[in-house]
């Protein structure tokens, strides 16, 4: 018990530099036990070949918007810092380890997290920081959320895990009626800013009804909560550390298909990436393509198909549209979302296509479309288009024709450009 406590007083970057080589060995030798194994058909190829992932140290350290936790002006950004290759679950683990090391009140808890979690995001943390700070809870999501709220109301940093976003609904009451309204109902006397609820989200190719959902839309009306969805390991580490330190309760949804498939060089030092800021991944002038999480990569592929179609698709893509410049934006924070960035882009491009995995009706896309229509009505040259899952549950054997893929996105872009 004593050792981790002592260590936790050290600055984050010292602790992480020293601990990490050892940890990385441990992760690699422990048997893999994810609840969702890699799909039989292999990982989504659009992630593996994505140019959006920062696979060199230099590009990683130049990640836009990065705020280093240590504010050492002498350390040249590119010169002095190290990165290490991590996938998304390792980036989660890295962020949690920094949060635990930096903040003695921080605890990490949830179902099965002590042995590393079913997605391996908490590997080795119980051994490193002790079972008092990293522990299994009984199997009750409403309990986990309520417990976290109580802990956070006492000024502690509560980092809870809900094993799958599909299983967040037993905690809905605690999150929507309690967490979201805690500060407001007490006239600002009480707050639970220290609460962060992490949960794996989105489809994996073989999850069926209850291991595929994207429930972010259900929380859109819960003013007081923040919702964040990272697209990559670098983003995940920085956004998660922001979420943990944010003075509001945050639901942090991790696209589970990216846990293993998205790999980047991730800076080892502690850093944050600001919440409620969208990021323009590919600049463009003819159409704004807005998304978050896994579909970022399908959007990237769709743009590639548009700009240089394979022979089989070429006859279906009007040559005049192939040079269209599509602006790809990752929304990153879903609530409160970066209205200014989105509206600014749409006012320039005059066209908006929104992509999300959740169904169309009641999805986040509808909210964004309404706001953009209000603010850019006279600029729009086509109706705002939503490419989403259909309004049906996530049926196992039908997934390939339910989730928005690159072809459906491509078609939506073509239709919107030629409207």
């Amino acid at each position, binding site marked *: 018990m004593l050792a981790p406590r002592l260590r936790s007083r050290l600055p984050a970057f010292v602790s992480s530099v020293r601990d990490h080589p050892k940890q990385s060995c441990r992760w690699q030798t*422990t*048997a*893999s*036990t*994810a*609840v*969702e*194994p890699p799909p*039989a058909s292999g990982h989504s190829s659009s992630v593996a070949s994505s140019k959006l992932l920062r696979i060199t140290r230099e590009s990683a350290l130049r990640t836009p918007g990065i705020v280093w936790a240590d504010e050492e002006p002498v350390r040249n950004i590119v010169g002095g810092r190290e990165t290490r290759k991590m996938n998304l679950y390792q980036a989660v683990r890295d962020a949690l380890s920094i949060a635990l090391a930096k903040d003695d009140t921080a605890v990490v808890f949830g*179902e*099965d997290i*002590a*042995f*590393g979690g*079913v997605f391996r995001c908490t590997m080795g943390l119980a051994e490193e920081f002790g079972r008092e700070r990293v522990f*299994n809870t*009984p*199997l*009750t*999501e*409403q*309990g986990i959320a309520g417990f976290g709220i109580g802990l956070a109301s006492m000024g502690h940093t509560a980092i809870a895990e809900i094993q799958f976003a*599909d*299983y967040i*609904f*037993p905690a809905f009451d605690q999150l929507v009626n309690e967490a979201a309204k805690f500060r407001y109902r007490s006239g600002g006397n009480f707050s639970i800013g220290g609460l962060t609820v992490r949960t794996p989200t989105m489809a994996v190719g*073989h*999850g*069926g*009804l*209850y*291991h595929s959902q994207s429930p972010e839309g259900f929380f859109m009306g819960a003013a007081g909560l923040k919702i964040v969805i990272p697209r990559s390991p670098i983003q995940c580490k920085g956004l998660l550390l922001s979420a943990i330190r944010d003075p509001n309760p945050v639901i942090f949804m991790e696209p589970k298909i990216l846990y293993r498939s998205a790999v980047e060089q991730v800076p080892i030092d502690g850093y944050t990436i600001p919440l409620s800021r969208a990021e323009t991944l590919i600049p463009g002038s003819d159409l704004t393509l807005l998304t978050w999480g896994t579909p970022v990569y399908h959007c990237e592929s769709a743009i590639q198909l548009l700009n240089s179609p394979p022979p*089989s*698709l070429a*006859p*279906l893509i009007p040559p005049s549209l192939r040079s269209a410049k599509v602006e790809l934006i990752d929304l990153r924070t879903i609530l409160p979302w970066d209205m200014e960035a989105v509206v600014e882009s749409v006012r320039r491009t005059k066209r908006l296509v929104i992509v999300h995995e959740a169904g*169309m*009706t009641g999805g986040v896309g509808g909210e964004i479309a309404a706001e953009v229509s209000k603010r850019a009505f006279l600029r729009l040259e086509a109706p705002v288009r939503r490419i989403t899952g*259909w*309004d*049906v*549950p996530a*049926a*196992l*054997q*039908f997934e*390939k*024709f*339910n989730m928005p*893929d690159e*072809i*459906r996105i491509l*078609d939506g872009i073509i239709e919107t450009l030629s409207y």
Partner: protein
Amino acid sequence: MLRSFSFKHSLPLTRVCSKSRAHSTLPSVSSSLGTLPTTQSPVVSKLSFFNSVTGDGSKIPTYRVLDGLGVPVEGAEVPEISEQFARRLYEKMQLLPTLDNILYNVQRQGKISFYMTSYGEEAAVIGSAAALADDDEVLAQYRESGVLLWRGFTIDSIMAQCFGNHEDTSGKGRQMPVHFGSKQHHFHTISSPLATQIPQAAGVGFALKRDPARSSKNIACVFFGEGAASEGDFHAGMLLASTLPTPTLFLARNNGFAISTPSSQQFYGDSLSARGPGYGIDTVRVDGNDVLAVMNAVTDARRRCLESGRAVMVEMMTYRVGHHSTSDDSFAYRGRQEVENKKKIDNPITRFRLFMESRGWWNETEEEELKSRLKQDVLKAFKRAETLKKADLKELFTDVYAEEPWNIKEQREELAGLLKKYGQVWEPWRDELKSFKDEGKKLLD
């Protein structure tokens, strides 16, 4: 009609209820220190806490009939079963691991997406099924496919569900493997979110009670793991079935683990049995690896449930020998040796086989014959299921509502249009379309 019927049944119910209260360990005499307005709790002057339902702080006992060698333990009542019935029990117990061995490997080969085994829990599930009426309504968690097998759900139906092909009558290929369901077999469709079936079972019991044709005949029976019993829904279900009351039988499979979490981290009290009396529910703990003990306990529990119209709980103590699922490697959190020991020392199938042999009902030759016959049956069904296509693609859009609203109709038509445009030129779609029975052509029907 219904009104007079329920009145009639409320009489015996009160009687049973007061009888069971008399068994309570708390003294029921009124005290000289006065009374309380809303309870008959005797008033005492001595401060005393309690934290045990046995009264003396000891653990709740476990009921057993056969010892590890299949020999009846002293004083145990061996249920009167015929040789034929015993053989049926044994055969169904053996069918489970046969299916599990093959389907587990089939998953490993990537032919199905997921699987969960019943290893170690064959007696708990088959014993329960054998003690229920075949038309009692069962709401299961997921590790209870043995109930369906006992009721005659075919190996082909099991395979069709796991492969999600067009013969999947459980859910048209929409759900992950092992999410079986069959109205014909009174087995409600499995849902992955844990414990949701528990309060539903109270509602099912209530419906049975209100149905004159089934009220004195059937109960609702709900299975769940000791992990799921930590969910709020467990407590809600117990409370409703006890208070309203409804004839609902709670069958807890305490197999020691919820994925990686050992039961020692799931609760601090004397496991699930201690909770029953808290809700005023007749409760028994039974050796879940002893099929005859399970049968006796569930038979009596079912009788109580039916007679009193109230909730009853049986906690079956067993051990999850297999990994949680094909997505889990349990040696990351428990020792190989621990599992090997449990398998050897306390195998529910072996225990019952030894009992059968002692009666002269079973021998080595029959064992070999059974095993090879079951294996052939399963392999045959597997090979057939493997070749069948998925359901029609149009089933993606059906059954959401009883009727089709405008948005789903438009989306179905939109997909049909997209398939027309890209279905043959975009290779991933062309390949995928071939796997559906209608190859996507019926989307506009």
